[in-house]
């Protein structure tokens, strides 16, 4: 196995240093010149918070005012997952349970932690409406729970079929899109939530996003894992 | 759209449509391809003649026109007298050449490619003839440059590919120069339409003389390559690796005359009186005069038959350029008439070269001893054309040279007479030995009794066209005085070109 050298040749380093010094100087000058008080869009956000359907300003920006950014961001996430799957050896994202060393301690821990994490995830999802939180935080915890389960050999039953995996990965984006298109069909513009339905719709979207984000994070983890036989080979063929 | 306008559009588009159909038919469907090709050529001739009729009827200010918007100039077509003269020549000779080429190429490979690009070339040449402005002209001019390449390299031999490279090395930088010249001129004056008597504002001669001279130089650099002006002529002999029909129609008529035709458009219908005023046409005349002598001298030294013809073409093209540059109506008439006359005669000669090469595998002048016995019709046609080029009456060449001579005196450029004289002697010196060898030298034994009994002297699809073109050459001279002969047509055009 070829070992990668730790450092580049001196000429490269000197050049890099010069470039970095230049960029650094430019940046420092620029950030210090930023006006001390510039309210930005904060007043505008405040003024419209009441009609946004949520109480937390950041959530309002993310899901309503700049919901389009979030829609595309979910697209990035789904896209990256498809990309990772396309690179994984098995290309399916299904977990090979033999690779997981069923450790009794880990297993017990997982059994205890996983339900708690799922609960925490639900709370974060709900809290996002008025406090920091939301689908991403919730999805991350959900994903972590999944990774934990996978590491302890429980993940296998989750992915009953390839279609289920694909559905879980894309459901958040699809629901988000469907909501957006539904609003258009109802006479509004893309992502224009009717004031009375805004909260409900956002919660629906957030919920499915949580599921997808969890599934995506698990898939990212699992898809990058080496297949069992490679692990065996590397550890010297012994089991 | 009036009937005349339709004819104008068809004249330009028919060859391109023919090309597309030929490509689509592919390699194996020979009969269908020949049918499409002949039908396309015939349609083109009909359309061109219709447009020509309208031009004659409508001159000087009711020419059929058509166009679409493009940039600030427009992509425009117009059937004026000068244009339809060239278009008729290209169209009619295409029809004849198609027959010849079907015979010549019958055993060659890649026929679809050959006939397809051939049609594109002819379409471009007719487009050049019927362009209403410099932009449209340039578009067709460069299309012609590109479409000729596959024909030059058609045989695919290393020599052919090398000839193709040489051709591009000359033609593409020339295109670049032409492009800059055209853009610059358009910027200086606004859209440059062709108009009898010149389209430039005379005031520009005092406000922007330097730019106008530079632009003229760029344009001549671009057009001079195809017109084979010295020192831009080098590609023409190299391009003789192409199959005979290409040398005949393209390298004696369509491509090279696109160059001189462009010079005529620029000198007469863009610069007009500004040319002599700025002194640029005088310079052009000197270059043309030198090219005439140079080409003729080089032709003398060639043993390769096609190369001798090629250098002869270099010299003859400059007759036209010279006539156009002399700023005298009579000389201009001579030059334009020579455009037609030389076309008929030189195509005959290249047809001969192809027929001889196919039939008896003779490529060099030194192999022509007694060829007149073996291929009497062919060599008779060749001799007639050669006599015409030398300028012996009553064949066509005489008329144009006569007009050129008188025109030069009219323009006060007596030195041109000397050039014409020397060149005629040189023409005789490189053509008469061929005629002498063919008819008066002892033939090879197998040629002594003519073609084998009961067989014609060659593929009749090749012999008949060259006899016809020779006859056309003769007729142009004999009937030069008639109303619609190229000579009187040229004089009419020259009349319009000189309102000043």
């Amino acid at each position, binding site marked *: 196995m070829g070992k990668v050298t730790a450092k580049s040749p001196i000429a490269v380093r000197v050049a890099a240093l010069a470039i970095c010094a230049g960029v650094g100087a430019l940046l420092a000058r620029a*950030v210090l010149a930023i006006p001390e008080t510039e309210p930005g869009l904060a007043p*505008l956000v405040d003024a419209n918070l009441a009609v946004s359907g949520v109480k937390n300003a950041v959530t309002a920006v993310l899901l309503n005012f700049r919901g389009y*950014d979030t829609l*595309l961001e979910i*697209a990035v996430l789904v896209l990256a997952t498809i990309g990772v799957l396309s690179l994984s050896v098995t290309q399916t994202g299904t977990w090979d349970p033999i690779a997981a060393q069923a450790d009794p301690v880990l297993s017990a821990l997982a059994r205890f932690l996983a339900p708690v994490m799922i609960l925490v995830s639900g709370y974060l999802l709900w809290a996002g409406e008025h406090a920091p939180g939301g689908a991403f935080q919730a999805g991350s915890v959900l994903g972590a729970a999944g990774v934990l389960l996978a590491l302890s050999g429980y993940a296998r039953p989750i992915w009953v079929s390839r279609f289920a995996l694909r559905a879980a990965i894309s459901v958040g984006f699809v629901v988000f899109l469907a909501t957006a298109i539904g609003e258009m069909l109802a006479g509004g513009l*893309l992502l224009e939530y009717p004031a009375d339905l805004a909260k409900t719709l956002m919660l629906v979207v957030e919920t499915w996003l949580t599921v997808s984000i969890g599934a995506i994070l698990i898939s990212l983890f699992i898809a990058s894992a080496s297949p069992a036989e490679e692990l065996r080979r590397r550890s010297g063929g012994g089991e | 759209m009036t009937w005349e306008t339709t004819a104008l559009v068809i004249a330009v588009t028919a060859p391109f449509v023919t090309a597309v159909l030929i490509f689509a038919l592919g390699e194996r469907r020979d009969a269908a391809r020949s049918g499409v090709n002949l039908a396309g050529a015939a349609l083109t001739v009909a359309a061109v003649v219709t447009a020509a009729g309208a031009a004659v009827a409508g001159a000087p200010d009711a020419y059929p026109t058509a166009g679409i918007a493009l940039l600030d100039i427009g992509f425009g077509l117009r059937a004026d007298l000068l244009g339809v003269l060239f278009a008729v020549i290209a169209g009619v000779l295409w029809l004849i050449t198609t027959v010849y080429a079907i015979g010549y190429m019958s055993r060659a490979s890649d026929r679809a490619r050959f006939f397809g690009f051939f049609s594109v070339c002819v379409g471009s040449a007719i487009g050049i003839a019927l362009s209403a402005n410099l932009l449209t002209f340039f578009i067709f001019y*460069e299309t012609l440059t590109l479409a000729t390449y596959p024909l030059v390299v058609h045989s695919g031999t290393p020599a052919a590919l090398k000839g193709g490279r040489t051709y591009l090395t000359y033609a593409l930088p020339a295109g670049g120069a032409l492009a*800059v010249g055209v853009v610059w001129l358009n*910027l200086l004056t606004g859209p440059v339409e062709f108009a009898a008597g010149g389209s430039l504002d005379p005031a520009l001669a005092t406000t922007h003389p330097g730019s106008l001279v530079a632009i003229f130089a760029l344009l001549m650099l671009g057009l001079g390559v195809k017109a084979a002006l010295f020192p831009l002529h080098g590609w023409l002999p190299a391009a003789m690796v192409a199959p005979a029909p290409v040398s005949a129609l393209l390298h004696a008529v369509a491509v090279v005359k696109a160059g001189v035709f462009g010079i005529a458009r620029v000198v007469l219908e863009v610069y007009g009186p500004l040319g002599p005023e700025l002194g640029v046409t005088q310079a052009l005349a000197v270059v043309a005069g030198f090219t005439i002598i140079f080409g003729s001298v080089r032709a003398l030294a060639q043993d390769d038959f096609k190369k001798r013809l090629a250098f002869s073409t270099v010299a003859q093209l400059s007759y036209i350029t010279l006539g156009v540059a002399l700023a005298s109506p009579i000389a201009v008439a001579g030059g334009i008439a020579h455009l037609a006359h030389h076309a008929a005669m030189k195509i005959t000669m290249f047809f001969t070269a192809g027929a001889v090469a196919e039939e008896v595998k003779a490529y060099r002048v030194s192999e022509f001893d007694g060829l007149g016995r073996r291929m009497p019709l062919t060599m008779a046609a060749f001799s007639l054309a050669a006599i015409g080029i030398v300028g012996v009456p009553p064949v066509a060449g005489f008329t144009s040279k006569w007009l050129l001579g008188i025109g030069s005196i009219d323009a006060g450029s007596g030195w041109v007479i000397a050039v014409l004289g020397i060149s005629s002697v040189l023409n005789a010196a490189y053509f008469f030995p061929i005629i002498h060898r063919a008819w008066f030298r002892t033939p090879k034994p197998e040629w002594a009794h003519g073609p084998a009994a009961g067989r014609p002297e060659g593929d009749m699809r090749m012999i008949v066209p060259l006899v016809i073109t020779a006859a056309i050459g003769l007729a142009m001279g004999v009937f030069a005085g008639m109303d619609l002969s190229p000579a009187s047509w040229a004089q009419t055009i020259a009349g319009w070109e000189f309102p000043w």
Partner: protein
Amino acid sequence: MAEWIARQLPALVVLVPFTAAPLAYLLGTGFGRQIALISALLSQPLAILLAVTVVREGELRYEVGGWGGPLGIDLVVDGFTAVMVLVTTVVGLFVTVYALGYFGNRERYRFFWPLWLFLWGSLHALFLSGDIFNLYVCLELVSMSAVALVGLTLRREALVAAMRYMLAAILGSLFYLLGVALIYGAFGSVDMQTLREVVRSDTTGQAALALMTVGLVLKTALFPLHFWLPPAHSNAPSPVSAVLSALVVKGSFYILVRLWVDVAEPMAFPGVSTVLGVLGSTAIIWGSIQAFRQQRLKMLVAYSTVAQIGYLFLLFPLVTGGGQAAADAWMGGIFHAVSHALAKSAMFLAAGTVLARFGHDRIDGLGGLSRRAPVTAMAFGLAGVTMMGLPPSGGFVAKWQMIRASIESGEWWWAAVVVTGGLLAAAYVFRVVGPFFGREVDDLDDADLNAGPSPWTMESAALVLAIGALVLGIVGQPLLDLIMVSAPALVAGVTP
């Protein structure tokens, strides 16, 4: 219905491929192909309608979420946008048709369809976005889908090329995002229309623009930051190569033009545009020479992209002075992007056909191609006409406008570069095309005896694109008019 479509048009243009993408993933290989084709076909009328609407009504503004900038995000469509969407849609359709034949039903390439649809949607989103932060997300979407597509074959060279591309792309995005942060810090908005009014040429503003420019130049692969492009574009599967060279590099270029000519025009400093112009000129010369020296067809075509990108950057010095020269440069630069997109995709698709059928793309081994694969040879040759910028191709009209602009602005040296670049292009194009007419070489044996002639859809997709690029020079006037619709003030000659 018609009224609804008219109202929702900008959103629909983005949503069609974005809806198709997850569906193509969800439903798997067989459906992925059909969904991609449906999406491609649906996009055609939408893109045309978008262009027509812009011509009729001028700039379109679609307020996503109903908020409107600067609070919300606007989709903005002017002539430039409509042209880019149109060319993306047209190239996209033919690449899709080609890919149907190229990838067939092979399970291995099932990820192509969702990734390609994501890329397509991202490009549309990018062209329509009127918000510089939203553009960051679009840039990332474009880059990531493009990188994933490059690595699709899982060949070593492709993976390493994808990695190099990925690192360059992320770094470029980060530079861009840092610039966005500074812009927001200094001017309090990320909405382009608002910024146009408030942007000043102060320390922060200049630094922000400099950072964004570096990032976008890296993503556009302008010399000398082009190092990642040739391996990525040549090692990708050919339909992907076509999209990368034709469309993806133009995405970041598009933002660069928006920023300089449209948003930050008040702080345009001639020095920077000259630097961009000089780098562009160097790219033209250097890229062409490198292209000429390549042994593999796809590498040659990739270096040709490096060179052709150079022309795009001549736009910057030529618009700086305003007036007619700016308008001509604007038309010329954008028209070049369009005709290059058509021609370059045709070239890569043709190269892909060669590679798929004969198992190699060594230039020395392509003698006699015009006999073995006449349609493909013709497609490549016709596309070459646009590369050279000869009439009647679209490249000619673009170069015509650029030469015009440089003579008008008195900076004739740009015209010299344009002409020289055309001649160098002729050198590398004919280095390939010349031997097509030569004697056949043994290397042109079908790689797989069962392969037979390529599917006609593949060959004709390339040919149609090449013909499109070719006739653009004659029928291109409507496109030139479209480019000028609601053009930025600097270009339209209006002083605000």
